[in-house]
């Protein structure tokens, strides 16, 4: 199992009760560039530390939000491609159905892959529903657009014979000719996030890494759908390296300190869903039957614990969120045990994406967490959750 350190690069000072929506409509006057510069540098330093300690790196992007002040994942990726030496650089990811220009995406990926000498992991995501209102494209037909953008990006990165033209339904280009070619051939590995059976099937058919975020003990059926698709296609049982999961980690030598850190990090969960009503269910993002159901009133997002209890994925008690596999909290022994149990329950995990910094957590605390995960947890995970032999 590989471990990736991740932070959303949040601006938690704006997570105050007066802000009824900390996404989409929040004015940027609430973000001080001088403070943000410190935040950017601290987060980058944490990723450098993760690289030195032997962890891998994950970056994401969001737009018009104080939960994640990284609207352009390519920028920290570019910095880290130059400044790190060995870590895999995962972006998870690029919201390609909302981006105007898939060819530009391919160019960014190619350049980062070369600059890092072949360390890019290319994550593609549909994007969170809240951010549809910022896009010049609506949520209608978004997955069609996603797959066409995907096809174009893959072709652009894989073509070695000069320009081709692209005249699709959603994107049209007279000449596509991406320079440079990527380091990894024919293109960097692809990861996609998904949960719905149809989406998981499309990911499995292409043999990509399937990732889910904070789906807790509801993850098993999602991964099983991937395995089922492989079986139906007559393919070998997929290895654990096809499965990735993102959870929040609060770790310290002292258990009480770990729970204190968990409390700080839970600020991310408590705040992340504070968004003005119209952005919760943008038209087209959900199917008509689902959207019709939501007109009755939006239910809380629930997640199942390992004991089968339903808890609120954002507002649940910390103990329940640990039992649900949303948070992994405690001493290195505790966290190792929790991750191994989760690994076992989902049927084998190849990539553990650790939100190792969140909310008001300090730089020093984040570095301590990275050190503990690298030195004390990772060796045991490597040993006990060794790659399967196919």
């Amino acid at each position, binding site marked *: 199992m590989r471990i990736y350190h991740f932070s959303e690069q949040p601006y938690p000072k704006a997570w105050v009760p007066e802000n009824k929506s900390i996404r*989409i*409509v929040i004015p940027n006057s609430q973000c001080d560039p001088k403070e943000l510069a410190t935040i950017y540098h601290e987060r980058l330093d944490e990723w450098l530390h993760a690289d030195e300690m032997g962890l891998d790196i994950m970056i994401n992007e969001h737009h018009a939000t104080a939960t994640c002040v990284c609207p352009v994942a390519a920028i920290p990726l570019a910095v880290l491609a130059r400044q790190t030496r060995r870590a895999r650089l995962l972006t998870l990811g690029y919201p390609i159905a909302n981006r105007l220009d898939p060819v530009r995406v391919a160019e960014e990926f190619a350049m980062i892959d070369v600059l890092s000498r072949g360390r890019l992991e290319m994550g593609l995501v549909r994007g969170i529903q809240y951010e549809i*209102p910022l896009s*010049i*494209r*609506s*949520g*209608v*037909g978004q997955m069609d657009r996603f797959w066409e953008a995907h096809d174009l990006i893959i072709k652009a990165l894989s073509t070695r014979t000069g320009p081709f033209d692209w005249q699709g339904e959603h994107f049209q280009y007279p000449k596509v000719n991406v320079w440079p070619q990527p380091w990894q051939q024919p293109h960097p590995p692809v990861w996609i996030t998904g949960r719905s059976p149809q989406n998981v099937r499309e990911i499995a058919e292409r043999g990509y890494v399937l990732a889910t975020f904070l789906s807790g003990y509801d993850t098993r059926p999602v991964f099983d759908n991937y395995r089922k698709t492989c079986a139906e296609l007559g393919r070998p049982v997929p290895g654990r390296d096809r499965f990735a999961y993102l959870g929040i980690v609060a770790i310290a030598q002292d258990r009480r300190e770990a729970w204190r850190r968990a409390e700080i990090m839970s600020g991310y969960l408590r705040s992340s869903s504070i968004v*003005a*009503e*119209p*952005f919760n269910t*943008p*038209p*087209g993002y959900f199917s*008509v*039957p689902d*959207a*019709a*159901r939501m*007109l*009755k*009133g939006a239910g809380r997002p629930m997640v199942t614990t390992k004991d089968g209890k339903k808890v609120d994925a954002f507002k649940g008690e910390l103990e329940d969120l640990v039992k649900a596999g949303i948070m992994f909290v405690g001493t290195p022994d505790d966290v190792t045990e929790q991750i191994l149990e989760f690994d076992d329950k989902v049927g084998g995990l190849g990539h553990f994406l650790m939100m190792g910094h969140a909310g008001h957590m300090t730089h020093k605390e984040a570095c301590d967490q990275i050190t503990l995960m690298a030195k004390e947890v990772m060796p045991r995970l490597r040993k006990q959750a060794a790659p399967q032999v196919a």
Partner: protein
Amino acid sequence: MQDPIIEKIAGIDLEIVRQGRGRRLLFLHPHLGMYGAQSFIDALAGGAEVLAPSHPGFGRSALPKGMNCVEDLSYYYLELLDALDWREVTLVGASLGGWIAAAMAVKNTSRIAGLVLVDALGAKLGSASKGEFVDFFSTPRLRLEELYYHDAAFARRDIPDLSDEERAVIARNWEATAMYGWNPYMHDPKLRARLYRIHVASLVLWGAHDAIVAASYGKAYSEALPRGTFESIAGAGHFPHIEKPLELARRILDFVNKKASSRNTSGAKA
């Protein structure tokens, strides 16, 4: 209003209401679909033959693959007039429907005798940095309901309590609205410069209290139409066909009859 039926017209299974006798009138509904239009259709049908379809993708009308913009709708409805061999038709479009009607009339008025735009969207008449219409998709649902009407009693608060089927229609209409009008938001940047081609008599009617798009926009719209006139509807917001159905229908029928009589007069002179 009669119950709607599904009829295949010009290749699409369309949910329609066809009612009344007399001069022919095609009603193009707003983004709410046919919700609340019953009294208005009945009143119009007292003096005209009214065809009121649900646009492809709305209500129970089919949505053919590839149809996804108002340009597609406008060509489709011109084809519908050909298919039915309707002539001397008055187009009546409300809100989104007004945009569709204008997009038809700039292309071909050979079957169109008159154009009625009711609190119509579709044209960009102001500056780039300021939207002229309230953003439906960024406004809380109940707030939007309040903004739609002059009389707050019309605001729909019953949606959570409707049947699954009724809510599915609302969700489908909402999705279709996003498909046709997401971006550029509820307008076509090219439409304004093409309005000069509409040479038929054009009446722009506007709810005096429209809080979605101001009456000043409606006046500018009418001025951009070669034969445009502007009238205000007292006591109505964005949807006069729901709030003032009888008054609105009377004004439209007056317009249709006046047009007809002036045409007869000019015919006699010739």
